[in-house]
């Protein structure tokens, strides 16, 4: 039997709300994004290919992707630790700490950028400790990692928290009564249950970090070939009125972002199917 576009309902307003939703979505998101792709392809492949595989562009992808991977990995380990502590333990000020986890969402990226730079510069609160050890953070690729770790922090914690809350403690207790050590129980019982959420959190933090601009440009130093992230290269090309070049880099990043988005959707689908009929 052929299914109707929508099943019957006595509630009114489907036409109006659906119509407005599709209209507004097209106007603000789909048409502008589509036009960007069209613009690139109308400029010709030769120029496009030359721009997106140029040495400076390749260096910027390498930094953006590499630093985002490192930051997402740091967040996966320390975010798991933070989520675990927030779900399992009681300590004074826990509610405030839990609320603060969302700070990177709420704090404007430019504010985060100048603040982290001030902290990690040679004369800053943290930088003045690291500098004597020979570790320079501000104005190097390490600075990029620091900024991306900051903005990616809530993703892993917030993805893991509900899963940890749902985790059946009886299984852990069974493992303990059967003689498993804490480390064994964690590696064999808890971690396998957390993998899908951990991977999702990692991917969300990575996806956000790859496109990040505001918090990075203050701390990065922005040297071409060395500490220039891909979004900054787009801005640089725009400032030189190289619209075709900026658009070409943007299209590469958009394709990467959309691929990540579909990957994350598939991950969440997998996580759900692993949860079974719950």
């Amino acid at each position, binding site marked *: 039997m052929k299914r109707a576009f929508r099943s019957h309902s006595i509630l009114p307003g489907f036409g109006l709300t659906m119509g407005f939703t599709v209209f507004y979505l097209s106007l603000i998101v789909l048409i502008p994004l589509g*036009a*960007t792709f069209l613009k690139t392809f109308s400029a010709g492949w030769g120029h496009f290919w030359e721009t997106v595989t140029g040495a400076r562009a390749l260096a910027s992808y390498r930094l953006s992707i590499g630093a985002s991977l490192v930051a997402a990995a740091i967040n996966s380990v320390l975010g798991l*630790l933070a989520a675990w502590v927030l779900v399992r333990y009681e300590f004074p000020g826990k509610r405030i700490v839990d609320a603060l986890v969302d*700070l990177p969402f709420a704090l404007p990226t430019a*504010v985060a950028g100048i603040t982290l730079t001030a902290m990690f510069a040679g004369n800053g609160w943290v930088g003045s400790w690291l500098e004597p050890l020979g570790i320079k953070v501000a104005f190097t690729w390490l600075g990029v990692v620091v900024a991306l770790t900051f903005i990616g922090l809530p993703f892993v914690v917030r993805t893991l928290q509900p899963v940890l809350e749902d985790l059946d403690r009886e299984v852990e207790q069974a493992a303990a009564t059967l003689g498993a050590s804490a480390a064994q129980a964690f590696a064999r019982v808890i971690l396998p249950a957390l993998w899908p959420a951990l991977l999702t959190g990692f991917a969300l933090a990575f996806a956000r970090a790859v496109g990040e*601009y505001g918090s990075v440009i203050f701390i990065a130093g922005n040297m071409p070939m060395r500490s220039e992230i891909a979004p900054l290269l787009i801005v640089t090309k725009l400032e030189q009125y190289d619209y075709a070049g900026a658009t070409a880099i943007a299209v590469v990043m*958009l394709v990467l972002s959309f691929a990540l988005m579909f990957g994350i959707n598939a991950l969440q689908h997998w996580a759900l199917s692993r949860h079974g009929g719950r």
Partner: protein
Amino acid sequence: MAAAEVRSVGTGAASGRLLLIAAALLFLGLFLVLPLLAVFVQALAKGVSAYFIAISDPNAWASVKLTLTVAAIAVPFNLVFGVAAAWAIAKFEFRGKSTLITLIDLPFAVSPVIAGLIFILLFGSHGWFGGYLRAHHIRVVFAVPGIVLATIFVTFPFIARELIPVMQAQGKDDEETALSLGATGWQTFWRVTLPNIRWGLMYGVLLCNARAMGEFGAVSVVSGHVRGLTNTMPLHVEILYNEYNYTAAFAVASLLALLALLTLVGKSFLEWRQPELRHAVAQARDRTRREKT
């Protein structure tokens, strides 16, 4: 009670627990508390009077006004969209629903810089509509309309994705009862649906507003950085910072940090009123998927 307690992982040895708590707090303290403190310490580094001189500067005020104006336009637009999208998606069954939800989330996947760029390609002097706009003396890019458009784009999904799960959880029973008792569609919406979703609505507006006022990358690309005219607060912070006027930069930044703190307080309050809001988005994805499979 204590006798029945079985040692479970991590909750066992007290010293191990303390170590984990200390390590987590060290990480969160370094990345969350210290930056927050640093903003205010830097802003007040040259004393309270220097701070007030910095934030009462006319250009700083102009940036505050522009930021408020942009948010006052962008948030209501996305609010109307969010309510409409949530009504269509939560109250009706139709084909392509999960695709529609994915498309609504699309702006979250786009780098802010690219969000600005796409409006330059449309409305800039070399853009698709550039010639028409020039002929009619309308400025979109490097002017306020471009800033508003870019802000609407980056904050597009916020309210919709908070409201969809809330409305899905409410179901349709209340509305169907109201309609069968003779209420019109609008009456049902205003008197039944809206009171039911009010906390979720405020939650979405709060998060949308925080991003709208704090957006940097997208706005930076389309603004043109005309001081006193097209500088929002985050852009003004950048300009002051790049002029090595650190105290003034951090003074304006401290206002944005206060906004962030207020947002977190409001968010915690709303989560306390309605605990489901915390994980609402993840649950909505689950529910939509489950219906599909």
